[in-house]
């Protein structure tokens, strides 16, 4: 799938902008703070209904304005669709497809993109929560039904934690404990489905990540993924799990459920003392290994960057595998400045087969020649399409 035209009204620092996009690579260049990230953030919004930078939509609406509009013309083969979303400062957002109203949450059915931004370095260097979110977002794209299971699971954890707290402060009453069993059952049922879905995803993603890392960094490096499942762990704290061996391969929901049940039994006293749910997918992690060492804490800056990028390229590979609407649009925000010359060239080759790639860079020459065919210059929230000419 490609975006053939994007138009913005009162989005971030754009009062009004129109830009035509080409299949293959599109490069946006401009000095710092001119609106390059804002532009690609708008497209990211259409596929995820959120920004990768802020959690509230308010920041996306141009200062002093009441609403912002993102409108994009999408093309897949012969088919074209016009999608539009209006973000309102007060009141609900609105969305349209081919000028008829739809629910905003239905937008991702029409458009999918994978965005890589500097914030994604946290996938490698940050806390487990970011990695879980990465997996879960991909899972929901591949199997939308899981959105309900993930949301319900989060709520079970909150319900159960509240129950544990009140049981602790009130002394353990019989009827409260019998409801704990009810929540345990839900926790195990939903949680083991998540474990199965995540481990299945990791085992499909693993070869893609290895391939993508190799394509960026060259053959002598090996990137690998390992699951760290709290239901299989014997220490009860997230931090202590550091040197327990990880696990590859799929854990079925049935196996996860029995391990889950045993862990809960073993930890019952501790959980009642600490009043938190100590095991389950909300405590799991996926360990990224580079040449056998954990990337977190060992990998260099450029290596971490490449690993995060490999995760995103692997998502593209996974999404294009079973799609009916073509490749997701790949967005690379500020990537090239962080890579050495050889990796830049190899990345350019690696993304050559993706239907459409949008790239931003502050310095035009950081981006390999092969990706500069359609260059758009951005300055203070305005767009200058000077094809062929250097910015």
């Amino acid at each position, binding site marked *: 799938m490609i975006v053939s035209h994007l138009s913005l009204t009162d989005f971030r620092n754009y009062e009004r902008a129109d830009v035509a996009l080409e299949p293959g690579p599109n490069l946006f260049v401009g000095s710092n703070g001119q609106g390059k990230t804002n532009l690609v953030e708008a497209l990211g919004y259409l596929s995820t209904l959120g920004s990768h930078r802020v959690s509230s939509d308010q920041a996306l609406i141009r200062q002093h304005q009441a609403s912002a509009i993102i409108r994009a013309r999408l093309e897949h083969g012969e088919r074209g669709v016009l999608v539009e979303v209006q973000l309102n400062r007060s009141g609900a957002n609105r969305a349209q497809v081919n000028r008829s109203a739809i629910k905003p949450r239905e937008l991702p059915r029409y458009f999918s993109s994978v965005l890589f931004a500097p914030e994604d370095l946290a996938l490698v260097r940050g806390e487990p929560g970011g990695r879980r979110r990465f997996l879960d977002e991909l899972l929901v794209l591949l199997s939308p039904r899981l*959105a309900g299971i993930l949301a319900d699971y989060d709520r079970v954890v909150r319900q159960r934690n509240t129950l544990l707290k009140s049981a602790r402060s009130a002394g353990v009453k019989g009827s409260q404990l019998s409801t704990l069993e009810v929540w345990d059952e839900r926790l195990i049922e939903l949680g083991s489905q998540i474990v199965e879905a995540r481990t299945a995803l990791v085992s499909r993603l693993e070869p893609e990540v290895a391939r993508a890392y190799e394509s960026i960094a060259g053959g002598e490096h090996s990137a690998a993924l390992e699951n760290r499942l709290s239901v299989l762990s014997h220490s009860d704290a997230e931090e202590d799990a550091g040197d327990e061996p990880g696990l590859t391969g799929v854990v079925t929901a049935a196996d996860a459920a029995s391990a889950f049940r045993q862990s809960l039994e073993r930890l019952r006293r501790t959980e009642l003392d600490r009043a938190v749910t100590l095991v389950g997918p909300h405590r799991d992690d996926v360990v990224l290994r580079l040449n056998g060492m954990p990337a977190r804490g060992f990998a260099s800056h450029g290596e971490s960057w490449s690993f995060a990028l490999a995760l995103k390229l692997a998502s593209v590979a996974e999404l294009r595998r079973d799609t009916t609407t073509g490749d997701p649009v790949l967005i690379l925000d500020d990537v090239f400045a962080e890579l050495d010359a050889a990796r830049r060239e190899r990345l350019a080759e690696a993304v050559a087969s993706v239907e459409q790639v949008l790239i931003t860079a502050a310095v035009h020459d950081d981006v390999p020649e092969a990706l500069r065919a359609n260059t758009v210059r951005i300055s203070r929230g305005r767009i200058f399409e000077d094809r062929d000419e250097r910015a």
Partner: protein
Amino acid sequence: MYEGIVQELIDEFGRLPGIGPKSAQRIAFHILQTESHDTTRLAELLTIVREKVRFCEICGNVTEHETCSICRDPRRSQATICVVEEAKDVVAIERTREFRGLYHVLGGAISPIDGVGPDDLRIRQLMQRLADGTVTEVIIATDPNLEGEATATYLSRLLHQPGLTVSRLASGLPVGGDLEYADEVTLGRAFEGRRLVEN
């Protein structure tokens, strides 16, 4: 903060379900500015409603008598009880005209976050109704969300006794709509809960 009684009124509205501080303030000022006979009528209604309307002593449904019209209706089957969360669910099920048994209104669902445990629901009363063996079937019709499911699980364990059939309403696709318009989550659930077709 407003002075004394005005603030008290705002706080009081703010305690109502679904009303945040802003709405509470808007309603309070609306009342202050309304013709006085309108607010008198509202005040009267509030008092009468509290005096007249109460909960059916048997099932917990709303009624103006000791027991509700359904519990008093001799044509309803005494052998089946449908357990629901709220009185408004009774109204919804009655609209279907499918169910001819009795109801039991729990008054909510188990939800620790909202401070609701089994002791806060009318579960003991339900057990009392089942004691003499007249009732042979219980249909659990709590909401198809997490708390409703948890409540259903809790009840089905409690109701595990000889001579009593316990069932749970199927949750699935909204009828009357097209399959293509069902959202992914609902449709996904319906797939999981699929049944064999008899042939």
